């Protein structure tokens, strides 16, 4: 896709989300993150547990107020939206949550869950119209009329995730943050949900930010991929390019850590491994966050933070190795 002449639907500029732990300690969950997302594309967001993926996603849908930085949706800063504009934003931008077991209200029927948003945005809607709309949405996600009056706890994980997707679609969104929509599901069910998300995107021209820690899944669904490490973006590139030609030392390790479901490949591949574990995001040092574990680290890496730079063809990387 050629993004040169288009304006992004969403721009994130130097976004920070810090949590104060106590007087001396600040947890920098997201620390200076910038990226663009264009209309109709899927951007994958990957990284290990605690690197700030969900926090980033929540800042985009205004579930979290950023500590600093801007989130610009269709040219406007979302924190400054008022009245009709704010309402439109709340309709346009939706989120599907990580855990299908806790994100649905167990005391509501499927009809109430999916219908809630429709009512908010169409206050005068008749009961018959509401029911018709809910049914249409349920059928879109592979559920049916019989499911309408049941409670969410009566459903399997895969079905619950479908209900969550129907709820997000109910208000005709443009942009959906999918936060690990399939990681709580069994592999045989994951494919059902993934295929469905792809089809819905085609049908409605949706834009996705797809958060996951499974890099194979992200490759399958994304046009471009962002790799995060400890609150920062280390690499952002076209999906094919990133997987074929990872450049950041952390991305290289991450990609080669995945056991491929093919014994010949998995048993014979020469893996890059990395020592130690992800350090704490509390009071991180103002240098490359990967420096302690990086096999290529030099003195400079422990002194200054590398900036995210475009190496040409839209491949962006934050590492002192690339000048």
């Amino acid at each position, binding site marked *: 896709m050629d993004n040169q002449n288009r304006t992004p639907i969403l721009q994130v500029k130097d976004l920070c989300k810090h949590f104060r732990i106590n007087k001396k300690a600040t947890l920098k969950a997201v620390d200076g993150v910038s990226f663009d997302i264009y209309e109709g594309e899927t951007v994958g967001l990957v990284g*290990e*547990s605690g690197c700030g993926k969900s926090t980033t996603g929540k800042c985009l849908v205004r579930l979290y107020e950023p500590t600093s930085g801007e989130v610009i949706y269709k040219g406007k800063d979302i924190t400054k939206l008022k009245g009709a504009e704010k309402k439109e934003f709340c309709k346009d931008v939706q989120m599907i949550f990580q855990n299908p077991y806790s994100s649905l209200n167990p005391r509501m029927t499927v009809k109430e869950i999916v219908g809630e948003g429709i009512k908010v945005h169409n206050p005068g809607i008749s009961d018959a119209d509401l029911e018709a709309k809910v049914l249409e949405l349920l059928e879109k996600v592979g559920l049916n009329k019989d499911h309408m009056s049941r409670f969410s706890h009566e459903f*399997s994980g*895969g079905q619950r995730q479908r209900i969550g997707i129907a709820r997000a679609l109910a208000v005709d969104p443009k942009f959906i943050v999918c936060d690990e929509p399939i990681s709580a599901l*069994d*592999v*045989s*069910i*994951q*494919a*059902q949900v*993934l*295929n469905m998300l*792809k089809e819905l995107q085609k049908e409605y021209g949706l834009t996705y930010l797809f958060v996951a*820690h*499974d*890099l*194979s*899944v992200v*490759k*399958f*669904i*994304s*046009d471009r991929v962002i790799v995060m490490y400890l609150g920062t973006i280390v690499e952002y590139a076209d*999906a*094919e390019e990133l*997987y074929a030609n990872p450049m950041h030392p952390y991305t290289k*390790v*991450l*990609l080669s*850590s*995945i*056991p*491929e*479901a*093919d*014994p*010949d*490949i*998995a*048993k014979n591949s020469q*893996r890059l*491994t*990395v020592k130690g*574990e*992800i350090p704490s995001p509390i009071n991180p040092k103002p240098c490359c966050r990967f420096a302690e574990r990086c096999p290529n680290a030099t003195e400079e890496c422990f002194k200054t933070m590398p900036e995210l730079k475009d190496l040409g063809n839209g491949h962006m990387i934050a590492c002192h190795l690339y000048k």
Partner: protein
Amino acid sequence: MENMEKMENLLELRNVTFSFRTYGGVVQSVRDVSFNIKPGEIVGIVGESGCGKSVTSQCILKLNPQPPGFFGPDSSIKYKGEEIVTMSDKEMRKIRGKEIGFIFQDPMTSLNPTMKVGAQIEEIFVGDKSISKAEKKRRAIEILELVGINEAERRYNQYPHELSGGMKQRVMIAIALVGRPSIVIADEPTTSLDVTIEAQILDLLKELREKLGISIILITHDLGVIAKLCDRVLVMYGGKIIEHGDVGEIFYDTKHPYTNGLLNSIARLSSSKDQKLTPIEGTPPDLFSPPKGCPFAARCEHCMVICKEQMPPEYEVTPTHKSYCWLMHPDAPKVDLTYKAVKEEVTNG
């Protein structure tokens, strides 16, 4: 002849059935499962949530309280020729941890938060007067070093909350190994870990097999982990083993529609973006009233009349590869079950 075969197998499960009595009825978690474990091999058990992987492995050490759990009448589990099913608690204590070790699914909940790491490792020696206190400590430190924990002496005196997730998992492995067992059962040892840490732990398990010659029973739902580590694979579905064989036979010469379904439903690094994943429609059977025929029948695209009526028998593909599917019957229609996306890539060339 029979003797020789017995020597070859450290562990033999025959027709193991294990159920639980609950308020809702009887859950038949494990149904007529048979397999062997040979010295030094890594055997994977794969299948989706609730198919009976954990209960199967827990049966081997009788970790499930009876009642409400109970074995079926013909169940037999023999370790080095000795029957486990009828063994007393006292005898079981000589097996648990000393002959067969167990690594639990979740290190966060299975370590005791109130006890120091060292003490938890030494728990296996409690009441054993043949080993001195100093010797216990020496063995605990030695095992911590073996599982790759640096500053073992200091860690010995720490509490679990002072350790990272990856380190806790290493401690779990140390606990399973300190009694020098010949088999270790690892139930989803890496599921709660990040991929870079998972890679470290998988490498460690492999290295331990090489160094100590132990057998490992590895339970996972991740086919990548199976491909990376295992020599043999048991595929479970609805409480039963539906196919088993050498890892290459299972991945490249699948003879069961469920295994094939699993292989086709996962996204892979090598698959392209335009490819569509092939999901398995439907959901697994209810183990309160499992189907009388093939457990996969309700979701199988090749299901025939017989499949719903009668459990498929064991069919031998090779001496090491068995499938329980009516398609293997000589008169059944011929169906190609090889992983399809591989073929597409080849033809697109």
